[in-house]
């Protein structure tokens, strides 16, 4: 394998790249399996945040890995492996989300009731780690946040999810999404404003000391 100087240095440092090169050059399925092991948690989580359904997230993540394998010969180790992986993930997720928009389907998960509305008991199946009541709160909150994410357009959602859950900086997001960093900046700005609007009612602005019971939360400021 011939690599440029910087690339080979990068490859030495980065075990993911080494694995991917074994996949590319030797069709090494064991190395591929290791990559799947290493990235499945992150990828499934990101996909889940993007599409909102566990089953679909897993299918999409699987498709990403399969695409990595199918296009392995085209891989060049010029950036972090994860950037390449999430570039593929970005394309697949955007396609899936747009597909879904074109033919709107029944919601994949129960999320039709408002945060404080009555809810079917089975959705609230508590885990044993949390007392049931606590679990309920978390579920309600998660539901609200899920809806706030759904209120973003696809690109905004991708940018937010990568920024938040992959802790990606603007430059990496730009690379993954094929945008300029400037574009990412405005994308994220719009997304964050929308999230702020959607979640405003769920932020407690003066948590300590305990505020007077009447509302008057700070920040009805602008808008």
């Amino acid at each position, binding site marked *: 394998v011939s690599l440029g100087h910087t690339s080979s240095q990068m490859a030495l440092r980065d*075990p993911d790249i*080494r694995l991917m090169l074994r996949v590319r050059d030797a069709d090494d*399925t*064991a*190395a*591929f*399996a*290791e990559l*799947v*092991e290493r990235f*499945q*948690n992150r990828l*499934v989580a990101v996909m*889940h945040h993007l599409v909102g359904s566990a*089953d679909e997230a*897993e299918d999409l*993540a*699987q498709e990403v890995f*399969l695409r990595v*394998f*199918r296009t392995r010969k085209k891989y060049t180790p010029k950036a972090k492996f994860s950037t390449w992986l999430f570039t593929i993930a970005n394309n697949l997720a955007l396609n899936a989300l747009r597909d879904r928009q074109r033919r709107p389907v029944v919601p994949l998960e129960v999320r039709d009731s408002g945060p*404080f509305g009555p809810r079917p008991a*089975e959705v609230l*199946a*508590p885990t*044993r780690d949390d*007392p049931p*009541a*606590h679990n309920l709160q978390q579920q309600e*909150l*998660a539901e609200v946040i899920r809806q*706030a994410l759904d209120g973003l*357009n696809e690109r905004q959602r991708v940018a*937010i999810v990568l920024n*938040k859950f992959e802790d990606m900086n603007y430059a990496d997001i*730009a*690379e993954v999404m*094929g*945008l*300029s960093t*400037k574009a990412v*900046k*405005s*994308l*994220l*700005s*719009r997304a*964050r404003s929308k*999230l*702020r609007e*959607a*979640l405003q009612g*769920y*932020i407690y*602005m003066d948590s300590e000391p305990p505020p007077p*019971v009447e509302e008057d939360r*700070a*920040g009805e*400021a*602008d808008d």
Partner: protein
Amino acid sequence: MASEHTNPDDDPTPDPFEADLVAYLDGELDPEAAREVEQRLANDSAVRARAAELKKSFELLDFLPRPEPSPNFTSRTLDKLPTVTAATPLPNGTTRTPHPDTGDAMSLPFKPPADPRRRTRWAGLLRAAMVGFAVTSLAAFGYFATAKMRPYLFPNETVEAKLEVDPRVIELLPLYAGADDIAFVVELAKPEYFGDDPAVAFDGSLKVPSAADRPTGKDFDALVTAFRALPSDRQAAIIKLDQALHAKEPKERDRLLRALEAYTVWLERLPEAQRRAVLSAPATGTAQGNTRDRLAEIVSVRQQQWLATLPPDVQRSADLVEQWKMEEQARRDRLGFARKCAEEFTANRSPWPFDTEAGRKEVLEFARTAFKPDDIRRCRLTQEELNEYRRTLQLGQRDDSWKWFGVTVYELARLHPYLPEPENPKQLITDMNDLPEAYRREMMKKGFPALRINPRTVNKWPDYPLEILDQPFAKAMSNPPPLGPGRVTEFKKPVQDFATKDLFPKLIDFERLQLDRLVGKWPEYSQKFLKLADQYELSVPGVTLPGSPRRWDATYGGRFPARP
């Protein structure tokens, strides 16, 4: 790769300052621009509030659940790989040609179960459980095949990293193989599962594993291999279980280990089909629909076993089976109770919280406030309940046998939940004269005979106002004034102090908000307040049982045999 789209959104271009603010919060602004933002933040409270909202709303995303891939994700993905020579996907159902390096080993250990979603979580466990039964049987279940594959799956540097597994984990692996997590093990050690096993309950000196059972040499190596063959999340779960177990008091830890051993031995002796059913059941608490989770599956198998021990005539009669089952349950309850109290009886000690003078006093005070047994007019108990209360109290005071009083108070507190009284006695509504004008007007309009107010609730807090709210006329009122305290400042001082010092600092923003939304509403605000306190294991002074709610449940919850 970056193209120069500036507005990839369908949305209008954002306010440039807002974009800078967000970038600033993300640490993405160059120093000069950052200084500008900081200046505006320093000078403008509206901007500060905006920044705080942007930050906090982003932080809220942390509350989204983080789903994990199903444990056989890797194998399912690998199964879909195109053959390496063809580099195109094969149609469904076609078998893959073995990889030249790994041979068939690749697909062996990862055979997907019939219904991946349902069974995957425990497919790994099913294999792992075999370790406990006989290390030699591992080969049959693909362990050695997996081991052969290991060098391919994990390049050297990661193998080194993974070698550092605590030998203790390896030694106990046969016991951990069939367990989910610490909560599962604690459950297993209850009398209705394996806690009744004599070795678990009584032989406190029995250490697990005994020196003779410690795996050595080849056995140990095989276990190491088996452990490494597990998916990484399962490995992590086992290590977590091991740590949680060893964080327990030594006595409790040994008891749990003995229960695990009893369970493992039981599993090992099960017919293959039943063992599979137990091991492939979804983790306890995660079952959906009609599926049984693992604990439920264990109960079911044990019931079948119990049934099989009955004489054939009895087995044929459903009524007899039911009767014997109840007798068996009663026997267990008695045993369980005896065991619960055994230590206290032998030590001639009072049960918690009656084991200290202060504890006794607190419970009595609570009972006097919440049930008012000494005030004929306002007493909230029925005559029968009151009799039992007095009788068991006497048992405690006379014979220093507080267990029954504990049970009684616990049950009464559940039957007659109390709500915080208002600080202002005028707000304490216990009869018609206390009711706000609006209610009285409505009641007059209706005429009293039509009212059907339960007379037993009169003079009683909070029973009377709750009864009023339950009346159709009250439900029909628009904007009815609250019938009790609707905010913390209206509670009595000890409850106010409890709120500010103990409860509120623990609440997350969302919970505070939920509570605040109920301000002015009675009884909703009070009920939510109590619920939150209970969630955080706190007792509300003068309102709920003193001491940890869970400890009350643990000590006095569950079934008790007939009282003396």
